[in-house]
């Protein structure tokens, strides 16, 4: 499919001024993207005194002392572990539940499917804001406020709509004959799911994992309202608390922000292809 476009753009295709303008736009936007990130990193290598004297230049005496201090004060090991737990657990559950239900919706005939499947599709349009207050009140009423489970369940629920959508579409594209011949051989539906469908579904599982990991890892609001104890905070919540408006030690604040930024940037650079594909596949929303 991916043959390169052979007819290149010719010099005469666009007015030279237009070309220059386009070049400049792309360049300016790229510089604007990279410079603030660069400024963040070099600022984290300055002491607060140096930062106040020299806010934009390169550090004269670069120091990495801000990092251990910020790590300790913001309790980054707890934050990382919590973020890791919620991200991994919710992603695995979303993938499992979506594949299961997607298989049933796509391959088992039932009168309930249009209604059930439809209820998930509507969910693609719902946002966390519309359910934030009820979720908080429900968490308090069920004693799930300030518990791991109380955060994990909503994360799984919120990942379901797009998961169901993608999995149902994917499993529909598997030929019916695959399922039918296994049925004739006497396999139960659960066995077909475990032995045939789940192993085939790797591409959609990867897409879903990418979407869910980047969503949950960076998610802020839900943990912010459902958790008050330090022991359960995740990275975004902890980072905002540490380097929020009241932070006065700039060096440490920038170090904390850098620590918060690096994992996702590394994740992105490693899985660039998959993320790009996942994003465009997830954009079928609406």
């Amino acid at each position: 499919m991916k043959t390169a476009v052979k007819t290149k753009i010719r010099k005469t295709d666009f007015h030279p001024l237009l070309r220059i303008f386009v070049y400049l736009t792309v360049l300016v936007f790229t510089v604007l993207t990279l410079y603030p990130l660069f400024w963040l990193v070099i600022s984290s290598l300055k002491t607060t005194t140096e930062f106040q004297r020299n806010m934009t230049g390169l550090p004269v005496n670069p120091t990495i002392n801000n990092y251990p201090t910020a790590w300790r004060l913001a309790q980054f090991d707890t934050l990382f572990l919590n973020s890791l737990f919620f991200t991994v657990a919710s992603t695995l559950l979303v993938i499992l539940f979506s594949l299961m239900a997607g298989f049933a919706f796509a391959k088992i005939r039932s009168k309930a499917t249009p209604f059930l499947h439809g209820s998930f599709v509507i969910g693609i349009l719902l946002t966390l804001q519309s359910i934030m207050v009820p979720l908080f009140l429900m968490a308090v009423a069920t004693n799930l406020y300030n518990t791991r489970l109380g955060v994990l369940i909503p994360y799984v629920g919120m990942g379901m709509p797009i998961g169901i959508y993608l999995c149902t579409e994917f499993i529909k594209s598997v030929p019916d004959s695959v399922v039918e011949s296994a049925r004739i051989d006497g396999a139960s539906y659960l066995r077909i799911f475990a032995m045939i469908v789940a192993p085939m579904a790797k591409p959609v599982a990867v897409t879903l994992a990418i979407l869910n990991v980047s969503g949950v890892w960076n998610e802020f609001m839900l943990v912010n309202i459902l958790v008050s104890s330090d022991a359960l905070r995740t990275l975004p919540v902890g980072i905002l608390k540490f380097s929020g408006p009241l932070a006065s030690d700039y060096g440490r604040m920038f170090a904390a922000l850098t620590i918060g930024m690096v994992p996702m940037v590394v994740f992105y650079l490693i899985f660039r292809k998959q993320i790009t594909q996942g994003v465009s596949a997830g954009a079928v929303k609406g």
Partner: protein
Amino acid sequence: MKRFLTWWTEERRAYLLLVLPGVLVYWAVMAFPTVFSLGLSMTNYNGGVIFGNPNIQFVGLKHYMRMFNDQYFWISLKNNGLIMAVSLFGQIPLGFLFAYVIHRKLIKFGSFFQTTLYLPCVISTIVVGRLWQAFFSPYGPFTKFMQRFQPGWENELAYDPKLAIIPVLFVILWMYTGQYMIIFLANLQKIDPSLIEAARIDGASEWQVLTRIMFPALSGVIVTSAILAIAGSLKSFDLIYAMTSGNPARRTSVLALYMYDTAFKHSPNYPLANSISMFMVLLSFTLIVLVRITEARFGGREE
């Protein structure tokens, strides 16, 4: 009993078992709360026991009336409108431009630019918000930059209620343009290259390729992007919460933040907060339906 047993086949059991976990979780944390929120918005509930509390009364649309009479509601709505405008008329056209330039190799190092321009999307909004707050603050590079052109320039972006929204809008453009670039790029790559080649050989100009082949092929994606932009701009919360918390004097508030403040700050007013979220859901649905209608009327050609 016998009837039930013949109905209760392996097929039905499997269906139920497969569907149940997902349905239960989803209905518990999304479908039920939505209905719950609608109900709550029409009561006078204000803390304490919810279920079986005799003091909770039905008050109709009272809180909706109150919302419409609140100046902060209108300030927030206006800011959501501005964000939507930046998304629709800033992010989408720029995203398309970048995708086109990279896809047609108008510029060298396309994959470097592609990687870089999408980078902001993967960073946590909290980090982005704090970073840009520092960047635009009196001690940040922006002030330095302005003072180079205008010595003695004073940075009042954080205090002037009229200007404070501008950095926010800029950061929103900065952060999400890459997302649309990626979406357009993926769909440009789906267009059969031989189609473009044939058109060029037949003497079509690049401009004609763009308007006759690419735009029609992408029209569906453009509509999807518009819906994404509308839904996304109504959702915006984290970034503004981290950047300005809605200040100065709540002038950079948005609907989601206005609702959050109503529900979780000072004395909570849950029914009013739920009225706001119901309004947001309705607005989002209405706008998306409008986009669909426009598409059906004017989009026409593509399948």
